[in-house]
């Protein structure tokens, strides 16, 4: 059955319309499959080939993939949520209520967005620890690790800015407690706090600020860094595979046998 599905899919890829869109035609040859990756603006970030070992679950636990999954879910639920939301006080809370009680599947959207956000924060942390324990931060992947740390911070900021948007007690006081930590910065703590909230306390200004950051700035920055993160995986030689790597930097000059660079 799988064969039939794939065949049909290959046929679809052979059509003129498909080819006009994706610039690669049908065919199950390695070339065609490589082109499918290469010729696609999104997929070309990835290598055309991966090591067979890296497909196994234990290698990565698919944590990076899953994190991307939560991000996609968050974007696709976040956009419809934006349709119903005004970042103003007290309309924001009323809109959240309306999502729960009046908007068709509004409660589902909000639930999915909320749980996915929590899942994303958790998965980003898990991804980081998994990468660390596998030693995948080693050269030449140093900078991709740094980008990963940046993405961790962006994820935390995304979740934190989103936390305020329902404008309920939970949101208000969580942001109040969290933002008070910023006041502890030496010398310019109060300035940082003021800049963060657009005022000395959490109020309508802070809500608007957080809304713009949550729905505009941070997602764009995140997408940019995610793109670099993926592209660097390819450029840094694919996913890190323990035994295939030279043990030390010193071993660099050891001649390799047949080097297909992915």
């Amino acid at each position, binding site marked *: *059955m*799988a*064969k039939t*599905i*794939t065949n049909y899919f290959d046929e679809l890829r052979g059509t003129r319309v498909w080819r006009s869109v994706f610039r690669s035609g049908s065919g*199950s040859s390695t070339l065609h499959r490589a082109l499918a990756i290469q010729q696609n603006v999104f997929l070309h970030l990835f290598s055309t080939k991966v090591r*067979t070992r890296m*497909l*196994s679950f234990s290698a990565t636990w698919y944590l990076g993939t899953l994190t991307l999954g939560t991000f996609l879910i968050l974007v696709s639920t976040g956009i419809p949520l934006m349709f119903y939301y005004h970042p103003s006080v007290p309309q924001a809370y*009323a809109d959240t*209520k*309306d999502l729960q*009680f*009046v908007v*068709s*599947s509004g409660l*589902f959207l909000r639930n999915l967005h909320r749980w996915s956000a929590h899942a994303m924060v958790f998965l980003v942390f898990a991804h980081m620890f998994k990468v660390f324990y596998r030693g995948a931060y080693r050269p030449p992947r140093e900078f991709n690790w740094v980008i990963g740390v940046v993405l961790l911070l962006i994820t935390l900021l995304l979740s934190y800015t989103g936390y305020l948007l329902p404008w*309920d007690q939970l949101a208000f006081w969580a942001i109040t407690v969290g933002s008070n930590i910023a006041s502890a910065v030496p010398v310019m703590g109060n300035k940082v706090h003021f800049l963060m909230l657009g005022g000395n306390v959490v109020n309508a200004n802070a809500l608007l600020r957080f809304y713009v950051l949550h729905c505009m700035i941070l997602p764009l920055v995140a997408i940019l860094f995610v793109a670099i993160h993926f592209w660097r995986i390819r450029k840094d030689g694919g996913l890190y595979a323990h035994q295939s790597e030279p043990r030390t930097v010193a071993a660099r000059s050891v001649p390799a046998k047949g080097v297909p660079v992915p």
Partner: protein
Amino acid sequence: MPLSSESSFEPKKNSLSALWQTLFGHPVRAFGVVSLLLLILLAIAPAKNHFSEWRHYQKQYLALIRGRGDAVTLERRFHDHDGIQQIWLPQLGVVDRCTSCHSGLKEASLSDVSTQPFRRHPAIPHTLDQFGCVMCHRGQGPATTVEEAHSSTLAWEQPILPARYVQSSCGQCHRAPLTGTPQLNSGRNLLGRYGCVHCHTIKLPDGSAIKPTDDPPSLEHVADKTTREWVYAWLKDPQAYAVTATMPNFKLSDPDARDISAFLIADSTPLAGDTAPTPKNEKAPDPTAGASLYGESFCASCHAVQNAAGNVVGGDVGPELTRVGNKVKPEWLRAWLHNPRVYDSGTAMPHYRLSDPQLSLLTAFLGNKTDTDLLANVHLDAATPEQIAHGKLLVTEYGCASCHEINGIKKPDNFAPELTRIGSKALTQIIFLPGMTHALPDYIAAKIRQPRSFGSALKMPQFSLAPGQIDALTTALLSLTDRAQDLPRALTVAAKPASNYQPAGRAGQLMSDLACFSCHAINGRGGDMAPDLTWEGSSVQRPWLQAFLKNPGTLRPALIRRMPRFNLSDEDAKELTDYIMTVYQTPEFDRDSMPAGGYPAAQVERGKQLFYSKYACQGCHIVDTKVDKGYIGPTLTQVGSRLNAAWIYHWLKEPQNLRPGTIEPNRNMPDEDARALTAFLMAQRGSGKQEAKK
């Protein structure tokens, strides 16, 4: 397919793993299967939407009305506004979607339906769209599920208000008493009557505060009035002395009560002229002989006495007198009866001008009202300075000075928490007792019922309240919401501003001395026990008034409470009459516009016809004592010499205009009918006097 899937998945072992292999053995197949699962799961969300509670109830409603006679009308009205319904009042912040399920609220023809949520709303003075639902019933208006709308949730802590407290919601806008909210009115009165507002400030939206009405006595000269033993017994249990006492029980330990009584007596200063010793040569009268004087003076209009059956009989303006002999010293009592204004210039007690023998009679009669058990077990040693000092400390600690004036102790400010917004108190700020329902009404009621159950160290004392009174107080307190405070002024119905009207001159002094305002209201100030006297000068004839002040008779045979006789001198009576006849005039009409007599006989006769047939006035009034049986309204046998003709005429035309709230019906009388009746009534002068002489 050159897919290398063999390595990642186990080879076939049995049928189960074969199935697994078929479904997930290949990434593409797995993709198909998992996608299908995800799509099915995603379809549940809109399906859930479709089976929502409110749709279910709307279907039930349609089924309910289908079989009815007016099904077509009802269905059309229902379909005119399908889907989620809401009442949106931006000014009030109301978004009520209750009508999404409560579909039949406005359908008068559904009066026989008793199943919720389809019951018809009972008739109320407002339309349902005017204020929405949650203004009165609380609960979460925007919610569209039963659980969220009716219960207390994390997102909305005010659940539906139990029906027995619903009158509290009227009180959010209506500060003035309403006829439909007896429980709220009573609760508001109790807040003042039991002195709650001495300790707890309750501010009204206009910035004023609710004032206490209980008039707790000053203790500056308490040693003149009573003994330390009585103070001790009273402190231990006020209701043991008088069941109607509003003083709460502070649950004091014996040593604490001992020390407080020691302090209060030691702290008291003597008051000059406060004691009137019995004249030397007078022999003690028979204690029971004062009973008739007590009755004639209508003491019972204000003071109650517990009878042998345990029933408390009498008014509640003054203190209960069942065991007054245990309390007051005879010299003080005599001085008080002689002129109460010496001891307490603001007392509601009138200054009876009693003669010496009358004073002796009453003093002996009241002094005999004792209960031997009350003080039988109270034996106090002389107070030590330590006890007095400790007593002073306790008096400060318990905030006694919030209610009573005490020498050397200032009235504490904000002694207890302010209750201005108690009706919206956040549940998170309340510490509930174990096993208690986590709801505001239950908390308030429990706190009133047994304040110390929330902690033995709490200062709030135990009040002696009936369950109905607790409900009433809870209702009144629940009306003190944020909404009541923040409501647009245009939507509130303010209470009549409290009047501090005080008549001027000597007449004014006389009226204070006689405590007229304890029973009568004038220009918005005063009690409601006796008729409002604001337009009395337009209403009555001068000779009648002067005679009445000297010797009040009864106008309403059905009433037990009557105007007492104050033994006024001729001058005083004339002074008062002059003042009333001159000042208390209505601007509605000219009192001299109709003659007092000389009406044509035919008109008088027509008036009689109208009185007995067309308007059947004899149902409530008596003109001919032999025939008429009416006793609801005043007797009219001598009305011709009592009332002013123009008053009668205008009274008949529009009684509510002259005395708002009177039960006299407005019969929409034509002018000639009113004139004929006036003529008939003005002719009623002599028979009453003859009657009285018999």
